[in-house]
């Protein structure tokens, strides 16, 4: 009786498991296949070799890294003090204040970037003249809430008695921050960084909308897609996939068992 019953409940996951295999796992295998074949379906390393010997694609990859790293740093520099002030303040309803900072998360990003574009045009005149600066501003504007939220949650959990203990033992404020607060907020920093770093390497729409003529890896996929070049497009996807994989491996070591922060907030 018991066995038949467990059997019954377990079966509920079959549709989802099948769905994952068909539409999550299979597409990745297909990308792998396309990345190592040519237009005629023959096995080849050409796409791979071309990618790493072509100065354009390598340049785009490096430029993408530069945009992503600078954006992540800028987000961190803006978000850390913000999250720190919000989490440590004695304001009664600080949750409401936090909502003000992460509210944009729920507004369509293309509309927000439209708004930013209008402001930048007023400030800069010809916005296509500052491609790198505008990429960083655009990405920061888009992803800032995703950095503030995980930092806030990890700083909120901070045990006050640890800070008091440190200052009782003679540490000054700066030392307390450097030796206690900062190390304890590492999980928040790590999950914020992953949520900003990867999207800012691929979100080419932000660049496009700011009349940017520079390319990041995401733009390459789109241009291959528009040219019906599935093989090279797959190779870039594969490269991005490997980067995602490496970042996930590294960050899993620091992770806090907190899955996506957007789940937590709703």
């Amino acid at each position, binding site marked *: 009786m018991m066995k038949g019953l467990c059997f019954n*409940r377990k079966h509920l996951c079959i549709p989802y*498991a099948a769905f994952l295999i068909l539409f*999550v796992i299979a597409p990745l295998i297909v*990308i792998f296949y396309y990345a190592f074949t040519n237009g005629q379906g023959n096995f080849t390393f050409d796409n791979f070799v071309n990618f790493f010997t072509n100065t354009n694609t390598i340049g785009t990859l490096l430029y993408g890294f530069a945009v992503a790293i600078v954006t992540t740093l800028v987000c961190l520099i*803006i978000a850390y003090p913000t999250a720190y002030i919000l989490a440590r303040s004695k304001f009664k309803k600080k949750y409401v204040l936090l909502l003000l900072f992460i509210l944009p998360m729920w507004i369509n990003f293309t509309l927000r970037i*439209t708004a930013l574009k209008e*402001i930048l045009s*007023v400030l800069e005149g010809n916005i296509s003249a500052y491609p790198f600066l505008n990429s960083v501003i655009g990405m920061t504007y888009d992803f800032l809430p995703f950095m503030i939220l995980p930092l806030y949650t990890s700083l909120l959990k901070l045990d006050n008695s640890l800070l008091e203990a440190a200052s009782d033992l003679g540490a000054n404020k700066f030392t307390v921050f450097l030796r206690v607060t900062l190390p304890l907020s590492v999980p928040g920093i790590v999950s914020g960084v992953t949520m900003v770093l990867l999207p800012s390497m691929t979100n080419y729409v932000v660049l496009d909308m700011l009349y940017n003529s520079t390319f990041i890896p995401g733009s390459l996929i789109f241009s291959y897609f528009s040219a019906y070049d599935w093989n090279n497009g797959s190779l870039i996807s594969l490269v991005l996939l490997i980067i995602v994989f490496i970042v996930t491996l590294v960050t899993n070591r620091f992770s806090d068992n907190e899955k996506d922060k957007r789940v937590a907030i709703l």
Partner: protein
Amino acid sequence: MKKYLKVIWLAVVLLFIYIPILVLAVYSLTEATVVGGAMGGFSFENYINLFKNEELRNMIFGTILLALVCACISTVLAAFGAIGTYYSRKLTKTLINTANQIPVVNADIVTGFSLCILMIVMLRVSKDTYIPLGIGHIVLTTPFVYLSILPKLKQMDNSLYEAALDLGATPAQALFKVVLPQLIPGILSGFMLAVTLSLDDYFITTYTKPSTFDTISTYVVNATKGSQTEVKTALWALSTLIFLIVIVVVVVMNVTSSKKKEAKREKI
């Protein structure tokens, strides 16, 4: 002094976040066609155009319909998936949880492009059937719904299910009348999350949509490249409307959830 600095810092960050949105909101209520230019008089023209222009109207309702349909399907898929996985062997659990993480950590553009290759290039499913688009949005949203149901399953009181069986309920009845109701908060927040993710998506839509169909995201991106002033200023109105709706929804959800918490506290 230090307190002033803190307030000033927060204010500056808030200004960075909200100035573009608010300036656009002000301009959406005028006759102006360029931000920073002459405002002209006060006018609701942009808001009227938003609903009078058939193309815009279809685009907005199409986006909402797509989000709702996909959110319903992904919520059902994720709810049963999460329940089934919860009672499965450890290996099955690990496999499904790992596969579930893939679309969460993966770049949307890679998810979209790979689905396009699989379905449109390899299997030759026509884009015009909306099947690739629907599946794309379900792939995007289901893992997040799954993740928001999982904690509720862990918090659930297992003895209630056993008690229902002892009292004569069939396993199916126990599942629907005892287990499922305990998951409802997770299911609802998962559904909301699915709707917002689908509404916000650009990349998966671009790679899977029929060429004649546009969601808000793809439409806005095309409109910024075009030069139709009427459409451009109507989108300012749309941005403002969405901003207001988000504020109302977030406030209402938080008021109700804090009321619930208070009610719980009183009970205890």
